C-alpha cells in the first residue's frame, strides 16, 4: 500500500467571527483518502460549565462544484457516527477549566479505509471543492468569562493524500449526508423516503434529547421498500442499540469538570453502566 502523505491545509487558524459559515477551497488537484478537521475553542476566563463543543458545530460539509454536498452532517452526529462506525471516537478534550481549550476532531473518510486506492476524493474531477464549517459559538451564550473567549474558535484541516506520483484512479468516493431533520412528536409514525440518487451503504438515525432514557423518543425503526412489503430491517431501538454498541472498542468518555454540589452534566453516552467522579486535589498535613 502506498504511504499516504499528511498535508496540513491550515493549522489552528483562529476565526475572528464567533458565528460564521467558514469556507475553504481545496487545491485544484490531488487525491485525498480523508480529511481530518480539528476544532478548538477556548473557555471563558472563569469557566465553561456543561458547555458542549459539539453544539457549536452546526454542520461540517464538503461541497463540490458549488452545490453538490458530499458531506453534510452536524458536529454531534459526525462525532457519534465515527465512533459507532469505527469503534472509537476521534480525539477530544472536554474541559470546563478557566481558559481551558476544548478540542474535537472529525474525519471525512472518502474511501473504505485510510489508503483505499479504489475510493477517494479526486480533486481534479471538480471545478471546485470546498470545506464548509457552519459554527456558532453563541449557542453557549454571549462571549464572556463563563462561556467562551471571543475570537478563539480555531480550525485545523489536514489531508491524507496520495503522493503526486502515485495517485490512484478512483472508482468513486464515499460521502455522508444528513437528508432529513426534525423534532420528534409525542406519538405517531414518521415515514420518510430515502435519497435515491446514489447507492446507499448505510443509514443512521439520530434522536437526541438530554435527560431522557434511550428508546423513548423513537421506539421502533423499520426500513423497507414498496410500502414496506419488503423489509430490510425492523425492530426496537433498544435492541438495535445493544447490538450495535456491542462491537465498540471504546465505551467510555472522560471530562474535566469544575464541579459544584448537586450539579448535572450531559454526556455523549447513555445507558450508563458506570459513572465515577474523582476530585483532583487533596491536602493532608500533620501539625
Amino acid at each position: 500500500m502506498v504511504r499516504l502523505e499528511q498535508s496540513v491545509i491550515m493549522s489552528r487558524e483562529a476565526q475572528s467571527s464567533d458565528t460564521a459559515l467558514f469556507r475553504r477551497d481545496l487545491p485544484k488537484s490531488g487525491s485525498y483518502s480523508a480529511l481530518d478537521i480539528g476544532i478548538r475553542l477556548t473557555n471563558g476566563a472563569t469557566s465553561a460549565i456543561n458547555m458542549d463543543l459539539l453544539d457549536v458545530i452546526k454542520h461540517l460539509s464538503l461541497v463540490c462544484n458549488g452545490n453538490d454536498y458530499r458531506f453534510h452532517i452536524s458536529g454531534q452526529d459526525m462525532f457519534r457516527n465515527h465512533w459507532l462506525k469505527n469503534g472509537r471516537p476521534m480525539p477530544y478534550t472536554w474541559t470546563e477549566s478557566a481558559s481551558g481549550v476544548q478540542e474535537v476532531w472529525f474525519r471525512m473518510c472518502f474511501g473504505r479505509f485510510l489508503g483505499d486506492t479504489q475510493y477517494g476524493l479526486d480533486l481534479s474531477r471538480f471545478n471546485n471543492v470546498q470545506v464548509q464549517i457552519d459554527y456558532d459559538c453563541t449557542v453557549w451564550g454571549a462571549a464572556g468569562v463563563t462561556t467562551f473567549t471571543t475570537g478563539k474558535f480555531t480550525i485545523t484541516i489536514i489531508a491524507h493524500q496520495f503522493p503526486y506520483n502515485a495517485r490512484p484512479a478512483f472508482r468513486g468516493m464515499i460521502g455522508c449526508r444528513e437528508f432529513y431533520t426534525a423534532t420528534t412528536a409525542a406519538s405517531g409514525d414518521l415515514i420518510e423516503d430515502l435519497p435515491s440518487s446514489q447507492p446507499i451503504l448505510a443509514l443512521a438515525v439520530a434522536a437526541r434529547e438530554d435527560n431522557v432514557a434511550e428508546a423513548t423518543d423513537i421506539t421502533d425503526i423499520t426500513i423497507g421498500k414498496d410500502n414496506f412489503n419488503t423489509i430490510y430491517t425492523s425492530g426496537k431501538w433498544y435492541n438495535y442499540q445493544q447490538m450495535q454498541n456491542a462491537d465498540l472498542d471504546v465505551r467510555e468518555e472522560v471530562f474535566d469538570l469544575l464541579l459544584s454540589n448537586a450539579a448535572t452534566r450531559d454526556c455523549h453516552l447513555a445507558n450508563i453502566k458506570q459513572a465515577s467522579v474523582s476530585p483532583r486535589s487533596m491536602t493532608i498535613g500533620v501539625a
Partner: protein
Amino acid sequence: MTTSTVTQLAVVSTVTGNRATMTGQTIGSTGLGTLTIAAISAKACDLKVVGDIHGFLRFPFADPETFDGVLMPSELRTAQIKLTQGGAGATLALIADEVSSY
C-alpha cells in the same frame, strides 16, 4: 496530634439518559477533633462514564470491503424509513452513507 486536612469527595448520585447528577463535599480538619464539611464548589474533578452511544443508531447495508448488499438507486425509488415516535422534543436526523462514481 493535630491535623490540617482538606479533602474533596464527590459521587455520581443519579443518572438519567445521558445526564449525570453529582454531589460533592469538601471535608476539612483544622485541628484535633475539628471537622468541617461544606458543599463542593467549582473544584477540578474528572468524570468518567461508560455506556452506549447516546441517541444514535447506524444500519450498514453493504459489506464494508466489497460493498455487497449496497442499496442501489433502482431499489431506492420506493425505499422508505418508518420511525415510531414515543416522546416529543428529540433532535432527529437521518443520515446516509453514499457512494458516488466519477
